[in-house]
């Protein structure tokens, strides 16, 4: 309760200070909270925001799935089979070390500036944390449980289904949380650098016309966007892998 009160007081204080200085500042440099709210109302009622938000969410979700599915599959392969590890690891390390922003021109050349390019670019950001965490999880599988499987004559597919997969799920879900943050970075970079769409596109368009109030309101929306998705994955985590805590002991 005390915490809430002190937080609320600080927040109101910051708002007041921003309002005071914002009123007196050049509107190109800064906008007061009241003006940001008005700009938000404006893009909301004209439908600009809804359309951008819809486009961003769709791109992010599809890109996330396009990155996560091969990420999990490759992670399982690399974690389980030394051969796959030897074959793929150098490329993965190399790509992981490459600043992904530098790949934007190549993505444009290969996949164009529309939805395909954006989805694949988001996938590129998403795939690595998932792949690396998954393969780490597989390597940590309790060797005694694998022995139990062998002893009772489990086939490779049964071992994967009944031992490796359930053991690795908590690692995968944790990696999804990491990946969603990176996915949003990839999304905004793609929307700003490829064809201007979504929230990233709004930022570029309105900053070009020096509408700082809109830019600030979009930034605040982005903040909520990121927090919302992270929270969503956390809820997912509790539903999918409730035994996680028992493993971490």
């Amino acid at each position, binding site marked *: 309760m005390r915490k809430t009160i002190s937080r609320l007081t600080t927040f109101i204080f910051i708002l007041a200070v921003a309002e005071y200085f914002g009123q007196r500042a050049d509107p190109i440099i800064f906008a007061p909270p009241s003006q940001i709210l008005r700009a938000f109302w404006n893009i909301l009622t004209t439908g600009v925001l809804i359309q951008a938000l819809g486009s961003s969410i769709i791109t992010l979700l599809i890109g996330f799935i396009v990155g996560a599915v091969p990420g999990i599959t490759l992670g399982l392969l690399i974690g389980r089979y030394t051969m796959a590890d030897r074959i793929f690891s150098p490329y993965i390390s190399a790509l992981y070390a490459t600043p992904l922003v530098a790949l934007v021109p190549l993505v444009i050349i290969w996949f164009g500036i529309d939805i395909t390019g954006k989805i694949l670019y988001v996938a590129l950001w998403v795939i690595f944390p998932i792949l690396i965490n998954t393969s780490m999880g597989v390597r940590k599988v309790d060797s*005694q449980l694998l022995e*139990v499987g*062998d002893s009772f004559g489990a086939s490779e597919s*049964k071992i994967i289904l*009944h031992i490796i997969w*359930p053991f690795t799920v908590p690692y995968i879900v944790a990696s999804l949380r990491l990946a969603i943050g990176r996915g949003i970075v990839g999304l905004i970079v793609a929307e700003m650098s490829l064809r201007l769409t979504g929230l990233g596109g709004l930022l570029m368009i309105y900053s070009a016309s020096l509408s700082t109030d809109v830019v600030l309101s979009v930034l605040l929306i982005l903040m909520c966007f990121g927090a919302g998705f992270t929270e969503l994955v956390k809820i997912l985590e509790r539903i999918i892998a409730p035994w996680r805590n*028992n493993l971490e002991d």
Partner: protein
Amino acid sequence: MSNTDKIEINEISKNFYKKSGNKFQCVEALKGINFSVRKDEFMTVVGPSGCGKTTLLRIIDGLIKPDTGTVLIDGNPITGPGEDRSVVFQNFGLMPWKNVLDNVKFALLLRKPELKEQHNEIAHKYINIVGLAGFENHYPHELSGGMQQRVGFARALSIDPDILLMDEPLASVDAQTREILQEELLKIWGRNKKTVLFITHSIDEAVLLADRILVLDARPGKVRTIISNDMPHPRWMYPVRKDPKFAELREEVWGMIRTSYRDYSENGNKQAL
């Protein structure tokens, strides 16, 4: 091979390679092991630590292959794990994401897929036998160590194997639970005869349970002797530990292990250098 031999171990040897510094050192885990286990016999295996007890059990289960020698079951050489054997593991080996019922059914799923309709019924039967009725929906982390190993017993028994291989199954259980489980194991074995190979580091346990006690030497692991225990069954019906014969056997086994330790420190050091 006599008609009553269930498991026959012929000249089993196994070496491991251990990296020490930048050289590989060869460790002789087992050397020229020969013995057999009779049908429906309860045999315990004791020996100093590092004598390859667990390696021996894993070879008999078929989890690892020996460098030389063969394991015959009913006269046929084994090629890997089979449905005639199940293992009870030292650290239970239960899936933390499966409840008691599903952990038991896991063995049935793998070994008796043709009986799919009866899996629930069979699993419940063995859960009852090990005294866990009412705990079917509990997860391993909700159970004590003793109860977890009861699940391990139920899982191993559920597929009705001829041979039970037990790898220090009571080593991770507290002392009181241990005595209770020893007694229950004797009861289960009395009602439902199996050939049992039971590894332990407790001499007391080895004598209490066994028809015969196999004493192994360490480094290299080889058979020192086999001691018969003809104290009458069922042993849970009378105070076995008070019987003078029990103390005598304990002393005999302990004497063997003591000599084994002495030989090891004399020869072993020579080998290590």
